[in-house]
Structures are given as structure tokens and as C-alpha cells.
């Protein structure tokens, strides 16, 4: 059966992968028959209405799904198409209450025009009452015009170009179900108790959880947990969550009552939870919290064995948060330090030494870790930044992991990508010949090791120099 999806015009490259992830989670195959990156409307093929409802119910980027009643490039063809596809359905709907909505993307209509459009469908012969609130059936006429994003006007004339005044595509759909866009408000960072400068927003974390197939009964892990944004999103969809971070302060948070007393986690007297857990409690999903602990990916205590259903992470980029692993920069500290006969590392307040970490090394370590711990068909969702002058983007690959999708969120002079991998069954190997064959430059300092960081900052310096030149000229 064919269905019409009405998407939000946001995070365009995430829209198809999200629907595909949700379809495969629900056990269906989805085919995109029509998709245009400039349009909110897409036509998909799914087995039946139950499948359509199941797929859309969790979607963050899809607003609605409809049974497709007709599509064409003008109204005459649309009416013919509607008659051909649906005339056998009309008699069952004769007595129901209904409403028609005209949704024009990048176009608009006066009230009279809208009424005329609705009246033009009178041949379906519905005799039931028109009801604007809670009707039994809703029909949507969706018109798609060429937006000025798609066709930027060369002249500043007030007259729109002729091709912008007529819709390029029109659809008629019978409404079936909503997506889950409304939950973005519930998880809005502005209303969350415990966040930091690098917490990812609700929309993208929920999309990530969808891509990673978060669902009841599953176990998820975030090795760079921070304030736990991904955990909260995965927990919303029912998964249980573990997280770790090299710096415990990032998930514990500060408790003003006990700072300095090395007791900032959970005050015994007030029973207050650590920051990460307080987020779970805020949303009433505390039973989805398993554990948070302090550890480092290069010396992880997690045992080798396939037990994780999903790994979601946004590793530090080394711009705002430094990339660090355990170790010393200059190779010192190979001897155990004793203070009054007690090993220093057992004393309260001991801080393990850390050194800068290579960007490529970190990504490869994540893939290796995922291949060792994910169950078959388990998913890894990893965010990765790239500076826009990187000529050819090469995605990190691993023979045990298949790349499911790559989506891009562009910024001014850099962008970040969400890469979704699937753990292949034992014995299957993915083709990694196109994978990243790059290794980190040698060095001891962050700028030597992290190409992204270096590019990010040199670019800003260049820009700054240019701007200064300009002001000099003036």
C-alpha cells in the first residue's frame, strides 16, 4: 500500500534514515517512492495501515502519515487519480463525520480558494456532518510549490516567478496517525535539571535513539555519557542505560551543599541523586537507569562479550572538551608512588594522570569496542565532526560493522554527522576497502593529534585575520 508522509522541514538528511530505522525495528520493509529534499511530503510503500501506524508512532521528524488517495501535478489529474484509487472506499465513509484540510507548502490560499479546493472533491459523496474538532475521518489536500529555498530568486522583483505560483505536486491523503514530534517539548533542554555546554538537544538525541533501535528490554551504553542526554532519550523509548565518562564530575554534577567534601554524588542526609540520575527522575523513568561509572575507553573495564543492544555516543571533539585518555604525556610515572607507605592512587582525592588522545584513534577504538560488545544486529550510533574543507569525507569502518546510514547536520564552517552501524552476525564481513586508512599524526599535544581541532581553529584564525584586514582597509 502507498502512504503519504508529512515531514517537518528540519534535519533533512535524517528524515529517510529515521523512517527506515523505525520500519526495520517494527519488522517491516519500507520503500520510498517519492522523496524530495526540498519538500515535506514523501510517498512510501508499506505492507498495510497497521505497519504505517507502527512506523510513524515514534518518529520525531515525521508529523503525520496518510493513506495515499491520489497524487498528480494538477487538479484534473488528481481528481482522476483519486477516482481510480479510492471509489470503492467511498460508500463505507458515506455517513462518517469528516473534515478537509488544505496544506500548502511554500504557497498560500485565500479562504475562498481553500473552500473551492475542498468543494472540488464533492464527487466522493460524503453525506456525514463536517466536524472540525475530532472528526471520524480527516482528509488532507497537500500542495507542494517550489519554495524560494529551492529556486532562489535572482532579481529582487516583487513578482513571483511563474513556476512558483502553481503547485508542482498535489496529494490527497486520508489521515492515519501522528508522529512523536510533541515529545521534543517534554525533553527540552531548557526545562531539564542537569545539563552542560555540550548536552545535545532533545530532537537530535531522540532521533539518535530511534536510529539505534532503543526499545523496552534492551540494554544501552554511552561511553561518553556526560549529562546523559542520549540515555534519557533511549530510556524514553524503554531501553535501560549504562554510561561512563573519564571525568566523573560530568555525570555527577556539583552539589553545592557538599562541594569540597568529596561527597558531591549523593548526599546521605538529603538523599539527593547525582545529576545524571536526577534527569531520569525528572521524567519518571528512573527504573531505566542502570549505572554510571568512571572509566576510560582505552582501559575499559567492560568485558568482551556480546551483551549490549545499543551504543550511542557523541565523543568529545577536542574543541570545547579536551580529548583525553589515561596516561602521561612525557612517559613519566611508571613507578608506583607511595605516600606514608600507602599507594597514592588509593588515597582520597587522587587524580589519575591523563594525556591527549588522537581523534582517529578514538573513533577506531569506539568501533573496536562496539564490535566486541554489541549483540548481533545491535546498533552503534556515533556522532562525528568534520571541518567543511575536508575534501573527501571518509567514514571510519570496521569489518564486523555495517554502515546503515550517514546523516549530516551542517553548521557555518563545520558539520557533524550521525553514523549508524549494525553489528553483523559472526562470519559476515562488511567491505571496509573504502574505509578510513588514516592514522593520527604523531605528537604529544592536542593540536598535533587532532586534525579536526587544528582545522577548526586555524580556520577561525584565518577568518579573524581576514576581518582585521578588512577593518584596516576601511
Amino acid at each position, binding site marked *: 500500500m502507498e502512504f503519504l508522509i508529512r515531514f517537518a522541514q528540519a534535519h533533512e538528511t535524517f528524515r529517510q534514515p529515521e523512517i527506515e530505522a523505525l520500519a526495520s525495528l517494527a519488522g517491516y520493509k519500507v520503500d520510498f517512492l517519492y522523496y524530495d529534499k526540498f519538500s515535506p511530503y514523501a510517498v512510501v510503500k508499506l505492507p498495510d495501515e497497521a505497519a504505517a501506524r507502527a512506523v510513524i508512532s515514534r518518529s520525531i521528524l515525521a508529523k503525520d502519515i496518510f493513506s495515499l488517495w491520489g497524487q498528480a501535478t494538477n487538479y484534473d489529474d488528481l481528481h482522476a487519480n483519486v477516482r481510480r484509487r479510492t471509489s470503492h472506499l467511498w460508500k463505507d465513509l458515506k455517513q462518517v463525520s469528516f473534515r478537509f484540510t488544505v496544506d500548502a507548502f511554500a504557497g498560500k490560499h485565500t479562504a475562498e480558494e481553500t473552500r473551492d479546493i475542498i468543494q472540488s472533491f464533492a464527487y466522493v459523496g460524503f453525506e456525514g456532518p463536517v466536524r472540525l474538532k475530532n472528526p471520524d475521518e480527516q482528509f488532507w489536500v497537500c500542495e507542494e510549490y517550489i519554495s524560494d529555498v529551492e529556486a532562489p530568486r535572482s532579481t529582487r522583483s516583487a513578482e513571483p516567478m511563474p513556476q512558483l505560483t502553481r503547485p508542482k505536486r498535489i496529494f490527497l491523503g486520508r489521515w492515519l496517525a501522528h508522529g512523536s514530534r510533541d515529545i521534543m517539548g517534554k525533553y527540552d533542554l531548557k526545562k531539564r535539571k542537569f545539563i552542560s555546554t555540550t548536552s545535545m538537544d532533545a530532537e537530535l538525541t531522540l532521533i539518535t535513539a530511534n536510529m539505534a533501535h532503543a526499545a*523496552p*528490554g*534492551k*540494554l544501552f551504553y554511552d561511553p561518553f555519557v556526560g549529562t546523559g542526554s542520549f540515555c534519557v532519550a533511549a530510556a524514553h523509548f524503554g531501553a*535501560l542505560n*549504562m554510561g*561512563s565518562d*573519564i571525568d*566523573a564530575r560530568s555525570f*555527577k554534577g556539583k552539589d553545592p551543599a557538599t562541594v569540597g567534601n*568529596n*561527597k558531591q*554524588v*549523593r548526599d*546521605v542526609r538529603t538523599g539527593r541523586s*547525582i545529576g545524571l540520575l536526577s534527569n531520569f527522575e525528572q521524567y519518571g523513568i*528512573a*527504573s531505566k537507569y*542502570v*549505572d*554510571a*561509572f*568512571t*572509566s*576510560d575507553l582505552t*582501559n*575499559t*573495564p*567492560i*568485558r568482551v*562479550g*556480546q*551483551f549490549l*543492544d545499543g551504543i550511542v555516543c557523541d565523543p568529545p571533539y577536542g574543541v570545547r572538551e579536551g580529548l583525553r585518555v*589515561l*596516561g*602521561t604525556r612525557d612517559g*613519566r*610515572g*611508571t*613507578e*608506583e*608512588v607511595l605516600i606514608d607507605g600507602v*599507594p*597514592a*592512587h*588509593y588515597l582520597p582525592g*587522587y587524580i*589519575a*594522570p591523563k594525556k591527549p588522545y588522537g581523534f582517529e584513534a578514538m573513533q577506531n577504538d569506539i568501533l573496536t569496542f562496539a564490535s566486541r560488545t554489541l*549483540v548481533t544486529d545491535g546498533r552503534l550510533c556515533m556522532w562525528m565532526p568534520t571541518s567543511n574543507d575536508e575534501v573527501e569525507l571518509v567514514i571510519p569502518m570496521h569489518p564486523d560493522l555495517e554502515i546503515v546510514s550517514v546523516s549530516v547536520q551542517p553548521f557555518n564552517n563545520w558539520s557533524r554527522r550521525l553514523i549508524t552501524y549494525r553489528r553483523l552476525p559472526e562470519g559476515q564481513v562488511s567491505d571496509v576497502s573504502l574505509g578510513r586508512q588514516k592514522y593520527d599524526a604523531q605528537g604529544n599535544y592536542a593540536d598535533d593529534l587532532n586534525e579536526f581541532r587544528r582545522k577548526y581553529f586555524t580556520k577561525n584564525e584565518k577568518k579573524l585575520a581576514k576581518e582585521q584586514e578588512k577593518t584596516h582597509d576601511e
Partner: protein
Amino acid sequence: MKVVTSNFITCAVKDCKSFPLHFRDAKLELQELDFQAEFIQNIIPRLDWDKLQITANELGFSNISDTKPNDDALNNEQILRDLHKLLLEVQIMEGKLICGDCGHEYMIKEGIANFLLPSHLGL
């Protein structure tokens, strides 16, 4: 730190990786949670049952069964509830995790275990 996590944790020292780590001076708390049968059913096959028995006995939960539940037992609500309590509701709030081989001690403070290593341990 919960019992379920301890079943997936080894010594962090690269040349050691001993498993399971042993709780010492553990201060426990019981936190009641919504019963999630589906999670317990999913996680049972992934557990190392022998090691779970060791951990459970060390913490004083000696009534754990000798064999890993399978077939019918996976649908026995009482068995699932007991495991839910042991794996997810028992919290180790204070104490140490000690490696049986290399002897390294990992501190647990207010529910958070610390697996960072000092630099002399072959980093």
C-alpha cells in the same frame, strides 16, 4: 553500582582482566523499581551465571539458583522478580571492588565505581 553491571565488568588493567571483581566492605541499599520482566528475560542469556553466583554469595544473597534459568523458568514471574531485585534493585553504595589476581582495588563512592588507573599500571 548494581549487581547486573558487575557481571559485565573485569579488572581494567590490560594484562589482568580478571573476572569477576570481588566486593569488599560493601554497603548495600535496596531501591524499589518498576518490574521490567522483558529486560530480565533478555539479559539472562548474556549473564555469566557462575560469576553471578560468586558475586551474589559474596553480597549475602545465597538463595540464587545453581543453574541459569531457561525455557519455562524464563516465564516464571517469581524467578524473574527475584532476579530483577538482585540485578537492578540492589545498589552497592560504598565499598571496594577487588581484583582477585592483581589485587588492584577500585573504589565505590556513593554508588559510583571508579575504574581509572594510575599511570604505573602499564598504560
